[in-house]
Each structure stands twice: as structure tokens, then as C-alpha cells.
């Protein structure tokens, strides 16, 4: 029995990381109807930037985040303003092709500068520390921190969207960009802010990912799939939905992995297919 409880707990905690991967994807799609195929590669890029900051500046991983996140925010803004804004149109194919191209560029730049070796961000033993919560049951400190971060960021985003002037502008632009412009909103700037936030979150997610596991330049597309699955399982309704989607995906993978160590990812895919079949709008779709 404990081994299943343990699996669920581990799944929930890893789901927090998946949610961190997924939030920006959901945000960019929600505001701009833009599907960022390079999202997973940007996670890996942030892992590498985190690694360079940790090794180059000799910082602890959490201190490194304070460097990586601002870099990620700026990259997101520049990417949107400089490239992606020019691809936004009624035809979603243009942004798909361009972000697919960006994905390939990131992978190849990383291969060129870092070779295909797998790397890891070391965190002075944090990755192996755990807290006992019951007999035969312990949770890793790092997964707990990741999950808590995911919950805080979800609450933060929900607050930003629901209760601030800039959040109102995001929603208004998403509803009707033409009418938003008549209110004085510079859509190009609003879109760039949205992408800055989306990629800024990846600054956190990328460093966590590098601390949790090894990574290599071509790992991005697999992470993109997890992010997609979390968004779709959760439904496009709210950031809490995306968090729930990540958690459900994490649980499915953890349970699958307990049945057979090779089945973790497969179990995630199966659950995703089941959601598509029986709840195609996800568990928390937009209500209006």
C-alpha cells in the first residue's frame, strides 16, 4: 500500500515541475493563440544558462536563479518583439514554423557549444536530501521546493491576471486586440510582456530541471510534450488547471513507473490519450 501512496506523492511533486514547464505555453497560447514549439528547448537552454552561472560564477543553484530569471525575462521580451510578433496572424502555421525553426536553432547552438554530453546542475547534496513523513515514507526536499514554487507561481499568475491592470490588459488583448488598441494598449508590447513572463518562468523551471536530473541539448522536444500534455489535461481555463494537469500527468507517470520501470512515460501518454477521448476540453476548461 505505501508504495502506491509513495508513487502518488512523488507524482504530485514532479507534477509541479511539469506545471512550471506548461504555464508559459498555456499563457502564450491563451493570449496570442501562439503555439511555441520551442518551449521545451527553451527549458533546456535555461538549464544550460543555469549551469554556466553555477559553474562560472560559483553560485548556488537558487542564487543562480536570480541571474537566470532576468536573462529569461529579457530573452522572452526580445524574442516576441523581435521575431514572434511578426508571425502573429490569422494563420497559425506561420508561428508554428518559426518556433519550430527556433527549436532547431537552439538545439544546434547548444550542441555546438556544449557537445551532446549530458550535464547536471549540482546543488551541494540537496538533490538527495529527504524528509521522512511517515514510516517507510519520505519526500525529497528538492521536489517539495519545486512543488511549492509551482503553487506560488500559479497563485501569482492567477492574481496577476485576475486583479492587476496589466492582467486586465492581457485578457482584453486576448479577447479583441483591435478594441484593445482603441483603449491605448500597444499590442506588440503586451505580447512581449506575456512572452517575457512565459520564458521567465522557464528560468526557474530550467534550473530546477537541471538540479533534478541530467540534461542534454536535444532533450527539449520531450519536455515540450510533457508541457503540452499538462496544458491539455488541465484544460485551458486557468493556471490552476494547468497545475492540476501537471500533477495528474506526474501521478500517471509515477504509478506507471511503479508497475514497470519502463512504463512511466508511457502511462503518462496513455492517460493523455484517455483525456483526449473522454474529456477533450480537459478537466478545467474555461467556463465562459
Amino acid at each position, binding site marked *: 500500500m505505501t508504495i502506491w501512496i509513495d508513487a502518488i506523492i512523488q507524482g504530485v511533486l514532479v507534477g509541479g515541475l511539469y506545471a512550471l514547464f506548461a504555464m508559459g505555453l498555456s499563457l502564450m497560447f491563451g493570449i496570442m493563440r501562439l503555439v511555441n514549439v520551442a518551449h521545451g528547448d527553451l527549458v533546456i537552454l535555461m538549464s544550460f544558462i543555469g549551469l554556466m552561472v553555477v559553474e562560472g560564477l560559483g553560485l548556488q543553484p537558487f542564487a543562480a536563479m536570480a541571474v537566470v530569471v532576468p536573462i529569461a525575462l529579457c530573452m522572452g521580451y526580445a524574442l516576441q518583439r523581435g521575431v514572434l510578433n511578426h508571425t502573429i496572424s490569422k494563420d497559425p502555421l506561420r508561428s508554428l514554423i518559426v518556433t519550430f525553426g527556433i527549436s532547431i536553432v537552439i538545439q544546434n547552438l547548444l550542441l555546438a557549444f556544449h557537445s551532446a554530453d549530458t550535464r547536471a546542475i549540482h546543488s551541494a547534496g540537496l538533490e538527495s536530501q529527504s524528509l521522512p513523513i511517515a514510516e517507510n515514507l519520505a519526500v525529497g526536499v528538492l521536489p517539495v521546493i519545486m512543488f511549492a514554487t509551482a503553487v506560488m507561481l500559479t497563485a501569482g499568475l492567477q492574481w496577476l491576471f485576475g486583479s492587476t491592470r496589466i492582467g486586465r490588459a492581457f485578457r482584453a488583448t486576448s479577447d479583441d486586440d483591435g*478594441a484593445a488598441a482603441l483603449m491605448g494598449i500597444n499590442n506588440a508590447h503586451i505580447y512581449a510582456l506575456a512572452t517575457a513572463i512565459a520564458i521567465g518562468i522557464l528560468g526557474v523551471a530550467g534550473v530546477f530541471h537541471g538540479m533534478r536530473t541530467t540534461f542534454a541539448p536535444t532533450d527539449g522536444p520531450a519536455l515540450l510534450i510533457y508541457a503540452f500534455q499538462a496544458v491539455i489535461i488541465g484544460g485551458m481555463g486557468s493556471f490552476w488547471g494547468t497545475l492540476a494537469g501537471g500533477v495528474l500527468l506526474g501521478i500517471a507517470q509515477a504509478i506507471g513507473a511503479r508497475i514497470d520501470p519502463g512504463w512511466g512515460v508511457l502511462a503518462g501518454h496513455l492517460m493523455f490519450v484517455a483525456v483526449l477521448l473522454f474529456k477533450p476540453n480537459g478537466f478545467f476548461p474555461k467556463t465562459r
Partner: protein
Amino acid sequence: MSALLSTHALKAWYGDFQALFGIDFEIRAQEIVAIIGANGAGKSTFLKAITGVLPVAPGNVVFKGRPIGGRKAHRVVAEGIAMVPEGRRLFPSLSVEENLCMGAYAKRPGPWSLEKVYGLFPVLKEKRKVPGTALSGGQQQMVAIGRALMSNPELLICDEISLGLAPTVIKEIYAALERITRDGLTAIIVEQDVLTAERVSQRLYCFQEGRVSLQGNSRDLTHEQISHAYFGV
């Protein structure tokens, strides 16, 4: 007295299709000018050209003595021109109050506030938490007008605010508009209903196929003149 806003040989295109063929127009401060014309005459296109939704040449539009033609829409609001767009275009995922707040996004200083808009349209205060698009047509139009006022404009532009509304509701909305303009706000009103247009405005332009076919004081124009200008020969 010089014009608050004027256009000079204003032309506008949708791709290769020319919709306006040199419109000369002016409105003085505190004036209410109506624009009438058949479907497709170019009234909305004219408003889009003024508000920066469609690109035009700089000197084509002059506001307070400065050329503003070709300026992007989001910068025109900051100059003091607010539009109540055709079809209202409220933001569906925003509540009534949030829709109104969006009008204040440009942060132009001035007399308008949520309280003042609720004073003008008390029903909106009761419904302020409701999604804007859940209201009746007339109430939605009130939100659209209130939203435009929240930007503290010097020039208010209304595109067919009576479209699809019941006569009593139209009366109510125009009564509110009269209260606003009595306080000195300048307004351009596009209106399909000629009688309403004549009644609320001091001067009137009639558009036909992208050109001005008639202009004059609303009181002085005869029905023959107007129907001739409206439908052509």
C-alpha cells in the same frame, strides 16, 4: 475659430480596394457633427482612418493643429480621441467594471471616473460584476460609451450606437449623450437614422461611396437634399 479635428483629402484603402476618395471634414470644439450615409458609404472607414486603425498619410488628419494621420491606434487615444466602435466590441472575459477600467488604460487625466460613469448610467453599477457581454444590447452600449469616456477624451466618436436597439433604449442613450456633450465634449456621431442624426447634431455630413455628398447645418438641410445625397440620383 479653428477646427479641433480636420481631415484633408483623406483617402483610405483596404488592400487594393479604395474606400475613401479624398474626404475634407472638420469639427470645431464643443460641436456635435453627425455623419450619415448608406451601408458601405465609408462612414466606419472614415472613423478608422481618424483613430489610427487604418494607415493614412500624416497630413491627412490634423488634431489640435498637429498632424496625427498614420499614428498607431494606441497612440491616438492618448491624444484625446476615443471611439465607441461599431458593434460595441466589449471584452467578453472582463466584467462590466473591468471593461470600464480598460477605457482608463491610457491614463489621461480628466473628470471621468467609475463613479461618474455609474452616475450617468446607474444600471451599470448594479451590474458591475457581471461579464460585459451578459448585458442587454442597450446596457452593453452604455458600457461601450462609458468605456470611451473613461479615457477623458476631447473628441468622442460614436459609430452607430443605436444599431439594433429598441426605440426607447435609443432615446435613453441619446439623452445621456446630450448630457455629456452639454458639458462641452465634442462628438462625431455616425447614425443610420437620419432624423436622429439631424436632431442631435449641429452640422451634418452625408457620405456616399467614399465621398462627401452633402454637408451643412443640420437645421437648414431639406429632406430632398438629404435623400438625394443619401441615395444618389
